[in-house]
């Protein structure tokens, strides 16, 4: 896609970004988001610096690298890293660039390595990142202190219930604090069984001509779009109306302002057992030991959850089918919207299932996942083109010259009857309806704060 380079940072004329940083706070209070934030080269570059290089970013699931030496190649923003379980069993996130000339060390997506070897001049590093071999060292690099020339690495790496995160800012808050209150909701998805959730195979990856924020925005809790965009799913019977039909049901709720993260939850009536649609053979193995009573009660009533962990990790936990003549099967999908240039993203999606589930169930649920949320997913097929349309309009001169703003006002005063649930057992500001857009305003408020931090605004 051809990009028109806009905006200039000159002293006389404040850039559009300076203006955005001054005005977006009040825009958000009115439920408005400038359209052009969805596609702009200067803003994109700033996002890489201020969001992806300064916050915790999801890297991999521990079940993807179970053995010493196992590694996967993964980006932080657009920067290349190797997530590796070292020979000391510690997980590190190494910068994929030789210390000598900067060449790429790892041209594979995954594998098991004893060392990382640079093909350019032959420098070799251990799986802990230490520089181990320098050809002709005795004559060519006599005085080289190898201990000073190990691979650069992300200064902060931590895991939460199997999810590995890394941060490039050494001063970032602890991961537990970054995920904060939202752990209460993540626990429900990841802590159902003693063995936890594990990834099936390798992730889906596909390119979408859309801004990464569209994915985060949608999964933060766009409960409003299913009845319109995804109506074909209901027509052919791949999903129940309860899981993905019209929004506004009496058991549908929105979790907003939960440490910057948000979630949309659909439930059955109190007392009903749903567990997303896992069959008894699976949910009978769920135990409440690692969860509070409130968490387990919510799991029991759950029909579907979507959510976004700021900045670009989303999830969906749902029971659906690939064929209306076969039973629904539940699965959890984590997905990441990797930035790939202004107006471009690479979607990654991992299907996770309870470790204890039978192989038959896993195969069945994986099939249901592919048929619904994957590049060929009957749901997901429809979303990507919509997001491309947003990106196209956001790149326009008109969006900037006329100051076009998008409507994020649902749930605000005078728009819909969204009331905060005072008796909700969990954290966050939780609304008693999913006909509200506080979930998405949460994402943009957090985005705005992250973009302002460290800037001269």
């Amino acid at each position, binding site marked *: 896609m051809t990009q028109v380079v806009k905006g200039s940072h000159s002293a006389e004329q404040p850039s559009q970004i300076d203006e955005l940083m001054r005005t977006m706070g009040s825009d958000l209070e009115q439920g408005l988001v400038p359209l052009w934030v969805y596609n702009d080269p200067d803003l994109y570059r700033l996002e890489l610096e201020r969001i992806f290089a300064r916050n915790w970013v999801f890297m991999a699931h521990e079940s993807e690298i179970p053995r010493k030496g196992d590694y996967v190649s993964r980006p932080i923003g657009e920067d290349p890293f190797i997530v590796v379980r070292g020979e000391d069993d510690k997980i590190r996130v190494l910068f994929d660039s030789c210390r000598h000339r900067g060449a790429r060390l790892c041209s594979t997506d995954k594998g098991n390595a004893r060392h990382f070897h640079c093909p350019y001049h032959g420098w070799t590093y251990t799986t802990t990142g230490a520089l181990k071999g320098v050809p002709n060292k005795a004559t060519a690099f006599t005085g080289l202190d190898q201990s000073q020339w190990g691979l650069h690495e992300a200064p902060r790496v931590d895991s939460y219930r199997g999810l590995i995160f890394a941060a490039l800012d050494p001063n970032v808050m602890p991961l537990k604090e970054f995920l904060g209150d939202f752990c209460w909701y993540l626990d429900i998805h990841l802590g159902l069984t003693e063995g936890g959730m594990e990834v099936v195979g390798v992730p889906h990856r596909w390119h979408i001509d859309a801004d990464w924020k569209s994915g985060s925005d949608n999964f933060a809790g766009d409960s409003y779009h299913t009845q319109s965009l995804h109506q074909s799913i209901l027509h052919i019977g791949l999903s129940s109306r309860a899981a993905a039909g019209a929004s506004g049901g009496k058991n549908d709720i929105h979790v907003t302002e939960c440490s910057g993260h948000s979630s949309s939850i659909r439930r059955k009536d109190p007392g009903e057992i749903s567990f997303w649609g896992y069959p008894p053979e699976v949910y009978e193995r769920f135990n409440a030991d690692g969860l509070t009573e409130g968490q387990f009660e919510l799991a029991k009533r759950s029909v579907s959850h979507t959510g976004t962990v700021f900045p670009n990790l989303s999830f969906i936990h749902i029971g659906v089918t690939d064929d209306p003549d076969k039973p629904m099967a539940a699965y959890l999908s984590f997905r990441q919207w990797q930035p790939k240039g202004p107006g471009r993203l690479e979607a990654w999606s991992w299907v996770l299932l309870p470790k204890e589930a039978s192989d038959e169930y896993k195969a069945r649920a994986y*099939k249901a996942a592919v048929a619904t949320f994957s590049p060929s997913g009957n749901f997901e097929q429809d979303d990507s083109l919509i997001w*491309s349309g947003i990106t196209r309009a956001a790149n326009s001169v008109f969006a900037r010259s006329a100051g076009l703003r998008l409507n994020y006002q649902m749930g605000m005063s005078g728009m819909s009857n969204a009331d905060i649930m005072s008796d909700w057992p969990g954290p966050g500001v939780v609304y008693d309806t999913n006909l509200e857009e506080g979930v998405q305003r949460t994402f943009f408020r957090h985005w705005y704060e992250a973009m302002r931090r460290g800037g001269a605004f």
Partner: protein
Amino acid sequence: MGGHFDMEKIMKNADVGHRYELQRRVEQFLYKEAELLDRWKVMAWLDLITADIDYRIPIRTTLENGHEDELFSSQAFHMVEDYGSLSARMRRLDGGFAFSESPRSRARRHISNIRVNSQSDDIVEVTSNLLFFWARDELERLISAERRDVLANVDGELRLARRTVFLDHVALPIPNLTVVL
């Protein structure tokens, strides 16, 4: 030699003729199949597959040399389909509510390098190359792949019984995969 039949030569010619005929039938089948899909006659395409079809597009990863057997996942797929799930997909596309194909994308399948390996007339193994052109709105993309099919002879007609699509891509270069390759 006049007046004598060289049975060996006749049998050999007949065999060659038979193999040419089979090659021609397979090619015509694949071209017909591609035409139906290119023209979005997706419900008619269902008539070309067997009830026990196994259709899959395994996810490819880039691995170190020596791991060629593991390049295509045995667990993870862009599509992993049986007749019921394919039928549901086609009904969705045909039903008028599938936004991703409203309007239809512009797609064309270029099938080439068709190699036929047959032990009998009833089960025919076919390998072919696929270049799939896809366009929607201002986006235009190509997908390249090798397809390994098993065609079954059902009441004298060839039917697709098994297809595995081996992509030349690690990340799919298109925003969605709405229909079979």
